[in-house]
């Protein structure tokens, strides 16, 4: 008997192998197996494996707005201007210098010379204009704000805007002239200064015109919410001028980039850069601890001290976000300024930030981070004062104020690692001064965000991480136009922010934004409460990665080495 058992086991194992073989042979032709054909990893530069939270949605910059797509695009592509590593100042990239006409309508970009795209075609003024005209002439589904998010944010509408419910009818962009091989002029319909900072966003990366055409980048059907990318530019053939080029992309497994040896600037140190998607947060941490990856983003604040205690490097990104409690003034009693002020005084923001956030988080006083120009140090402050809150409720004339307070589930954002604990703390603060709170929650995506955007939520927890280093990307996004989420119509604020956006004198812009911030915090459309510094975790051997306030949008890996 004892000898029979091993035989049986062996027989079963063989059966298993046979069935595996049969299963595979019948699928052999169909199986979409991949073959990585990268050059063998040389010792000189080595390979870095970096853990991400998901695959890129597309590598065609203009069509995405998610961080993981941006992270890849930042390595493969370059923009005309970029932000200084670790900061928000605009510095040269593919344009070595630029100047605006006195009226602020024509911007001349002097381009770097002898730059080639990764497919060998030249980068020049004609390529710049090709890219801008491509974006401006988007039709149909490509105009949807969910696809061309950054275009509509920075430039507004298109050559022929089809659906003005989705994007503004007018466009800031007018035309592009290739004055000579290395000089491109971008003409605007009205003066804008936020435009230059906007161009630093990887959405406005320069793609090879040949590759865009050859791989049918504009062949997108379906709807904005359910687009169908029929071309392969964004999935298999992203061709830019950056220090890395795509080697292989195996969705849900890994994305391998290799050094672009024809790069015009300082070449990448690494031979290969691998982004490995690991959706589960704890799994990313464990993969770092077990040595399978050498770094990852979106570190849970609760893990920071354990990781740094275990000898890993923790990099802090300078604060470039804000967490706030939003008020929808279309829903009374939030239209009553005394009620809004009562809420602001009732919230013990510093206690929450101290108890629930990492040590480097700070209490927010306005809707943009202190590192950005235009931040004002003397806005109206609403320090914790429950007695004053009670008095304000009494003065408001609203008896037993009841508020629906919304918070998201299934989400952790840099400015809101645990929304429900923020909600619980604020709810207790508000109830202590006499508010009746009706809790409302929904999964972050798509329900919560859409409820807030559609104006369904009365009071809500939300926040924002900046895309580029301009105040217009914070207070401009929130308050430059009327929005359902805020439900107010305040011409003074709208026009102050519009004027600040178009001002071309930088000193005047700073003063304009400081004044606008004061107006905003007097009006109190919501209560900003926290700025955080998101973290990256790396092994000790990884050197040269500079954390950026704008996150993956300006974190190039070309300067990174693996020891």
């Amino acid at each position, binding site marked *: 008997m004892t000898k*029979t058992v091993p035989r049986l086991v062996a027989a079963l194992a063989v059966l298993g192998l046979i069935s595996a073989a049969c299963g595979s042979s019948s699928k052999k032709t169909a*199986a979409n197996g991949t073959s*990585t054909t*990268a050059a063998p990893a040389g010792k000189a530069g080595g390979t870095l494996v970096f853990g991400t939270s998901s695959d890129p949605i*597309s590598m065609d910059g203009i069509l995405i707005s998610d961080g993981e797509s941006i992270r890849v695009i930042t390595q493969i592509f370059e923009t005309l201007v970029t932000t200084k590593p670790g900061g928000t100042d605009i510095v040269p990239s593919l344009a070595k210098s630029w100047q605006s006409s006195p009226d602020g309508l024509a911007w001349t970009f002097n381009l770097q010379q002898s730059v080639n795209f990764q497919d060998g075609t030249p980068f020049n003024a004609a390529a710049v204009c090709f890219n801008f005209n491509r974006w401006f002439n988007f039709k149909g589904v490509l105009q949807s704000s969910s696809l061309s998010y950054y275009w509509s944010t920075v430039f507004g509408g298109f050559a022929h805007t089809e659906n003005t419910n989705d994007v503004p009818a007018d466009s800031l962009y007018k035309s592009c002239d290739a004055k000579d091989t290395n000089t491109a002029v971008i003409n605007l319909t009205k003066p804008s200064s936020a435009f230059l900072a906007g161009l630093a966003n990887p959405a406005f990366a320069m793609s090879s015109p040949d590759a865009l055409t050859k791989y049918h980048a504009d062949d997108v059907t379906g709807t904005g919410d*359910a687009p169908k990318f029929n071309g392969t530019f964004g999935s298999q053939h992203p061709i830019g001028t950056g220090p890395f080029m795509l080697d292989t992309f195996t*969705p849900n497994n890994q994305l391998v980039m290799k050094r672009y040896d024809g790069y015009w600037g300082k070449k990448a140190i690494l031979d290969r850069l691998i982004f490995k*998607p690991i*959706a589960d947060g704890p799994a990313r941490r464990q993969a770092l601890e077990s040595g399978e990856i050498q770094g990852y983003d979106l570190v849970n604040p609760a893990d920071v001290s354990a990781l740094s205690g275990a000898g890993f490097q923790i990099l802090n990104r300078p604060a470039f976000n804000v967490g706030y409690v939003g008020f929808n003034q279309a829903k009374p009693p939030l239209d009553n300024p005394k009620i809004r002020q009562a809420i602001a005084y009732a919230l013990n923001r510093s206690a929450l930030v101290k108890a629930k956030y990492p040590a480097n988080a700070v209490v927010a006083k306005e809707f943009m981070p202190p590192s950005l120009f235009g931040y004002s140090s003397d806005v109206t402050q609403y320090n914790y004062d429950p007695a004053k809150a009670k008095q304000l409720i009494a003065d408001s004339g609203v008896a037993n104020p009841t508020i629906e307070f919304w918070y998201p589930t299934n989400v952790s954002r840099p400015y809101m690692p645990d929304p429900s604990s923020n909600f619980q703390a604020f709810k207790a603060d508000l109830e202590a001064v006499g508010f009746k709170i009706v809790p409302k929650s929904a999964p972050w995506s*798509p329900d919560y965000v859409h409820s807030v955007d559609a104006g369904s939520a009365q009071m809500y927890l939300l926040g924002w991480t900046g895309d580029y280093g301009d105040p217009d990307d914070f207070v401009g996004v929130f308050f430059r136009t009327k929005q359902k989420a805020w439900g107010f119509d305040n011409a003074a604020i709208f026009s102050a922010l519009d004027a600040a956006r178009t001002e071309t004198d930088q000193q005047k812009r700073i003063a304009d934004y400081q004044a606008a911030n004061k107006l905003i915090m007097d009006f109190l459309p919501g209560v900003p409460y926290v700025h955080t510094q998101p973290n990256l975790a790396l092994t000790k051997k990884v050197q040269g990665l500079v954390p950026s306030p704008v996150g993956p949008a300006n974190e190039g890996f070309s300067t990174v080495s693996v020891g």
Partner: protein
Amino acid sequence: MLKFIVRRLVQLIPILIGLSILVFVWIRALPGGPADALLGERATPAKVAQVRHLYGLDRPLYRQYISYLDRTVHLDFGQSISTQRSVSNEIRRRFPATIELSLAAMVFAVGIGIPLGVLAAKRYLAWFDHVSMAGSLLGISVPVFFLAFLLKYIFAVKLHWLPSIGRLDATRVTSHPTGFYVLDAIVTGDGGAFVDAVRHLILPAVALGTIPLAIVARITRASVLEVLNEDYVRSARAKGMTSRTVDRRHVLRNAMLPVTTIVGLQSGLLLSGAVLTEIVFSWGGMGSFLEQAVFARDFPVLQGGILFLAIVFVVVNLLVDLTYGFLDPRIRVT
């Protein structure tokens, strides 16, 4: 035998049609329908109409079903809403990962469960029996995700003996002609990749295979005990057959029938356990594919993926039935 196989294959047809109807109806029964699920709060009537038209949801139900069936027969499950990739290609790419994991888990469960059960039966009520049965009860009781997490924490994070994520080391350069990484390594003669793939398989396979192992061990024990008391076993021994021959010819063969049923059923259940295991180990198979689709409300993926897994389940059970025929000739004619 051939007749038996043909008959069983013919019986599959109504089952598969029934399955396709179930999946078709289930997706359309989502509150508000797929268009609302897709658009969420942005579901203005115009947008809903646009999406319904895009996915052909505005046509009569029977026509939708016919075109769905037509596409399904051609293995065209449409395009994922969240990744924009072809669902069929995605299934083709991910299915080998899930099968490889499930198979490894099954080899682990059967390879250890059956000997354990047989030995426990042979040592009925001895300490080995008590310990192995208590152990298997524990095995059944531990949730898959917890075990997966525990194994990973101990053997990957703390001891660094085995990898914690994926199917191969990210830096390994190799080719995948079949998508079954262990098999690929054998086919391409890549020893390093073979060791790497097997090392990656161990923890997830053990996590996923522990519950089936425990069940297989317990059923085997019960089944062997039952057969050991049969008259024909006593007669065989009385005729002077050696113990080994009796065990091989009479005990094991007869005791394996219920075990085969359980193995078949467990193979199907492994697919659901694989969802959790794949998430913990970032395995990249069908499980994580469906999990993401549920959160993204990606109905083409759900429709295609669930139907596909259901077909696999049915086919596995067919194979189990055929194995009965092999083990017990009486079944072939009934």
